[in-house]
């Protein structure tokens, strides 16, 4: 009786649970599309993608002298802020992560490995608001003094904190990728007289290339979607600038700052959904890219 139950119940149940996640993903996509769609009817899409001013509550006087709402929704400052902060965070995290991954995969004795790896995983578990807090009270004043700039809440401070958040993700995946390189490649290289560093840098790393790429891309996805940290540390300035030492306002922080206030169904509300849709598209695209790279290269290693 028990065998019958488990056979007939468990399989459909598991199938149902798997499908449920698809249902949620589809639901999110549908909501984002339906709520941001009206925006492109109400507001000029070209202005959205190329405009440099984000003033959602701006009012101007019309010909009759009345104050009317005339918001500006130019997303360029927000998009460049997101990209800047993400790329800078990855630039900082990459050498650290790769170094740690190589150390863990190749150099560390197993005992040390068993201690360090869980500690790195622990770092990944720290809530982002804690990182944001540390960024505000430790990193920002430090950067302010280091560069003698007026205020430490800027893109660089945020990037540093984000690098620490991306570090465990990238390290973990890169270390897996390096460990997955077939032993015979490594042994062949050593047998041919290469020393350990030459083996690692010229044989192991290129062989693990696709895994490392996908680790970086997933780190990118993690960082670009990070909200709390950039809200607290990046400064919130909505000007279009390429200077990491100025306050920046990434797209995620904008949504968090303004969502509660946007009246449901109004243009501001739809604009924020358009931002969210853009974020989702970017993250999905990068995740798909990571999957393709990881899947494609695994074949060529054989």
């Amino acid at each position, binding site marked *: 009786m028990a065998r019958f139950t488990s056979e007939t119940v468990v399989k*459909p149940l*598991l199938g149902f649970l798997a499908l449920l996640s698809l*249902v949620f993903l589809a639901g999110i996509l549908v909501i984002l599309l339906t709520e941001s769609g009206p925006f492109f009817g109400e507001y000029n899409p070209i202005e959205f993608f190329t405009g440099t001013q984000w003033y959602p509550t701006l009012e101007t006087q019309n010909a009759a002298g009345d104050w009317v709402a005339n918001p500006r929704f130019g997303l360029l400052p927000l998009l460049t802020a997101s990209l800047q902060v993400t790329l800078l965070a990855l630039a900082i995290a990459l050498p650290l992560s790769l170094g740690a991954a190589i150390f863990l995969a190749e150099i560390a004795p197993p005992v040390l490995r068993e201690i360090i790896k869980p500690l790195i995983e622990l770092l990944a578990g720290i809530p982002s608001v804690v990182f944001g807090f540390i960024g505000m009270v430790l990193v920002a004043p430090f950067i302010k003094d280091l560069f003698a700039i*007026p*205020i430490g809440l800027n893109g660089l401070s945020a990037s540093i904190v984000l690098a620490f958040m991306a570090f465990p993700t990238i390290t973990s995946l890169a270390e897996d990728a390096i460990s997955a390189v077939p032993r015979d490649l490594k042994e062949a290289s050593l047998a041919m007289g290469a020393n350990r560093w030459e083996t690692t840098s010229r044989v192991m790393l290129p062989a693990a290339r696709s895994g490392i790429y996908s680790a970086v891309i997933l780190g990118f996805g993690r960082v670009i979607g990070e909200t709390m940290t950039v809200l607290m540390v990046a400064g919130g300035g*909505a*000007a279009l600038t390429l200077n990491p030492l100025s306050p920046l306002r990434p797209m995620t922080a904008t949504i968090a*700052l303004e969502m*509660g206030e946007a009246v449901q169904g109004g243009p501001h509300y739809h604009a924020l959904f358009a931002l969210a849709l853009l974020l989702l598209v970017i993250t999905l695209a990068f995740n798909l890219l990571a999957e393709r790279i990881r899947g494609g290269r695994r074949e060529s290693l054989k």
Partner: protein
Amino acid sequence: MRKYSTIPIALALIIAGALAGCGGESNGEPGEVATLSVNGSTTVTPIMQRVAEVYEAADLEVSGTGSGDGITALIDGRTDVAMASRKMKDKEKEDAAAKGVKPVEVVIARDGIAIVVHPSNVVSDLTLEQVKDIYLGKITNWKAVGGPDLTIVPVTRDSSSGTFEVFEELVMDKEPIVPGAVTQNSNGTVRTAVAGSEGAVGYVGLGYVDKSIKALAIDGTVPSNDTVNNGSYKIARDLNLYYPEGASQAVLDLVKFVLSKDGQKIVADEGFIPL
């Protein structure tokens, strides 16, 4: 050859349908003590938090997210009482009417908005015009207004803030603030940002001025309870609570308490100006 079972697909579709049908939630029935949600202005939050500590007729859940947030939540039916450090805008009143909500406005205190700088800044007064020019980005160095040779870092609030709206109206004449200004999401974080930067200038509710920052005199008038009350300090506003017409007795009792002597004492203790 068995086809894949249709049961999980059917179940998933049913769940999807149920979730799609889920719309707004209705509030639960109150138990012995009602729970009221109070949401909105970060300026008014300290007052309502103190009220929550002493008020016994109901449990208050106070959250400071910005006046705009609070009013929107009231219109959408997500909160019982909204706190606002500004008046409702016409657009908000229209949206409320469209959703069948009639907000009732109650003034619970007066407040001044202090323009604050770092304590080490020698500048101690500015004209309203100068403050406006600083926030327009026209004045970028303190030495232009009699201070040290230091870049001015304007700190402002996000658009959901009532403090921001009042500042926009009374100081900026609705002109947009320079885009690169540091934007913080509460009075508290503005204060922290200004306290941490020698060249910063920001604006906070009068109740938030403490030793970590310095309030400037504007057009010769120092912001204080007296100057706000007698109208000589111009950057002043009413602090309001909004509740929907037809709200429960618990809400009406809460409002009565805030307007009572005990409630107004809390207002004064928090550094605001009682009625």
